[in-house]
């Protein structure tokens, strides 16, 4: 913890403009939330942690702008969200779906049922990837359930009503496609 305290002091001396922003406290408060947001996009823990690190590096680089930031939480989520979307262009989240789907299945189930369940989860993830980008983004961000509609709208750069409509359409489309797939 000595290291963390040292970090806190170093950052407050760097600021020197009255608003002593404690980056350590920021990391402690928001790193888990940012990790979940980024993980919902990338579905890989190592990549998500790397992106969270990048997000705080951006904060460090733009620390002079911190006093101007009204809502630190939304600001941080927006940085992490954009970085995750950038990273998503380089990696393909589909390659991690199998491991993630297996992790969702209960370990108490018999092997054959666990296999079927894992297939179902994987089908859902695949259909989520096939959704239009705006719908997929809203659905992914809504899955966190820690953001209000206004905050989601600010992160995505859309109006609240648009976010609501996109979320409704996303769920409907996803359900229909899953049923079609099951019938086929």
């Amino acid at each position, binding site marked *: 913890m000595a290291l963390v305290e040292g*970090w806190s002091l170093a950052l407050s001396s760097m600021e020197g403009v009255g608003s002593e922003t404690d980056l*350590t406290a920021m990391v402690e408060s928001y790193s888990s939330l940012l990790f979940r947001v980024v993980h*919902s996009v990338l579905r890989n*823990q190592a990549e998500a942690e790397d992106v969270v*690190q990048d997000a*705080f590096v951006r904060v460090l680089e733009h620390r002079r702008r911190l006093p101007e930031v009204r809502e630190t939480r939304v600001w941080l989520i927006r940085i992490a969200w954009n970085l995750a979307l950038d990273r998503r262009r380089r990696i393909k989240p589909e390659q991690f779906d199998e491991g993630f789907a297996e992790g*969702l299945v209960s370990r108490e189930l018999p092997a054959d049922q666990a296999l079927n369940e894992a297939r179902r989860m994987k089908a859902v993830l695949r259909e989520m990837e096939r959704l239009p980008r705006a719908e997929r983004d809203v659905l992914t961000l809504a899955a966190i359930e820690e953001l209000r509609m206004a905050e989601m709208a600010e992160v995505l750069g859309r109006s609240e009503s648009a976010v609501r409509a996109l979320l409704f359409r996303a769920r409907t489309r996803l*359900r229909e496609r899953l049923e079609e797939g*099951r019938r086929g």
Partner: protein
Amino acid sequence: MNSMKNSDEAIEKVLAGLRNVEAPVGMERRVLDGLEKRAARRSEMSSGWFGPVWRGVPGAYAACAVGVAGVAVVMLMVPVVRRFGHAPVQAHIGVGSVNSVRHISPTEPAKDGENSLQSSRVRLKAGDARVAGPVGAINSVTDSDAIALSETRAASFPAPPMPLTDQERLLLRLSQKNDSVELAMLDPRLRELEEAQEKTEFQRFFARPVLKEALGQSADAATAVPTDETDRLKTDSGIDQGAPQVSESEKVTPAQTVTPPTMETPK
């Protein structure tokens, strides 16, 4: 209806899985370590060598100090620049004299003399400048101007031609001699033609005496044994009447019948 319920369940399960994911243990510490390293690197890069000295000094004072130091450096450099400003010109003196000697025109003897004199004078003065110190240096500067002017006015000549190679010399000799036979010998086709022609001439040369010899023997036989029969025949045929009398010395021998070989083809 049941399938719809199943789909909703699956969707909810996946979204709950995304929601409930836990951050890896020790992520916060790793993030902070990374930030510390990055901040240390940035501070090293920004501070550099004078970093510890300037740390804690207000920005305005630091700017004033840098400005004063810059003015002081400029003021110190001005006399130094004035003193040593023409040093490169002195260095050019030797080179200029060498060049002036090299560019002496062989076609202009008068100028040649002037140039050599001038260059030797300049060399002497340059030597004096090296010995005499500042006064000599000033003289050498004026002399160097004179050298520069004289060199700009001097006539320029092209570089001497390069020596010819053996092959070039051989070709030049052949072309200047203008011997068509030798030139033609360079061409293998013409050479073969020439050889064929010579062979023909040779064969013609040795073919003629054989014929003449045969003819001569028959003539000898006719003249060496004159009989009445032959005389009678001659008188009858009238050979001796109009034909010139050929003496013994005028008889044709193979050696005498040889005519110099000509290029004409036999008829």
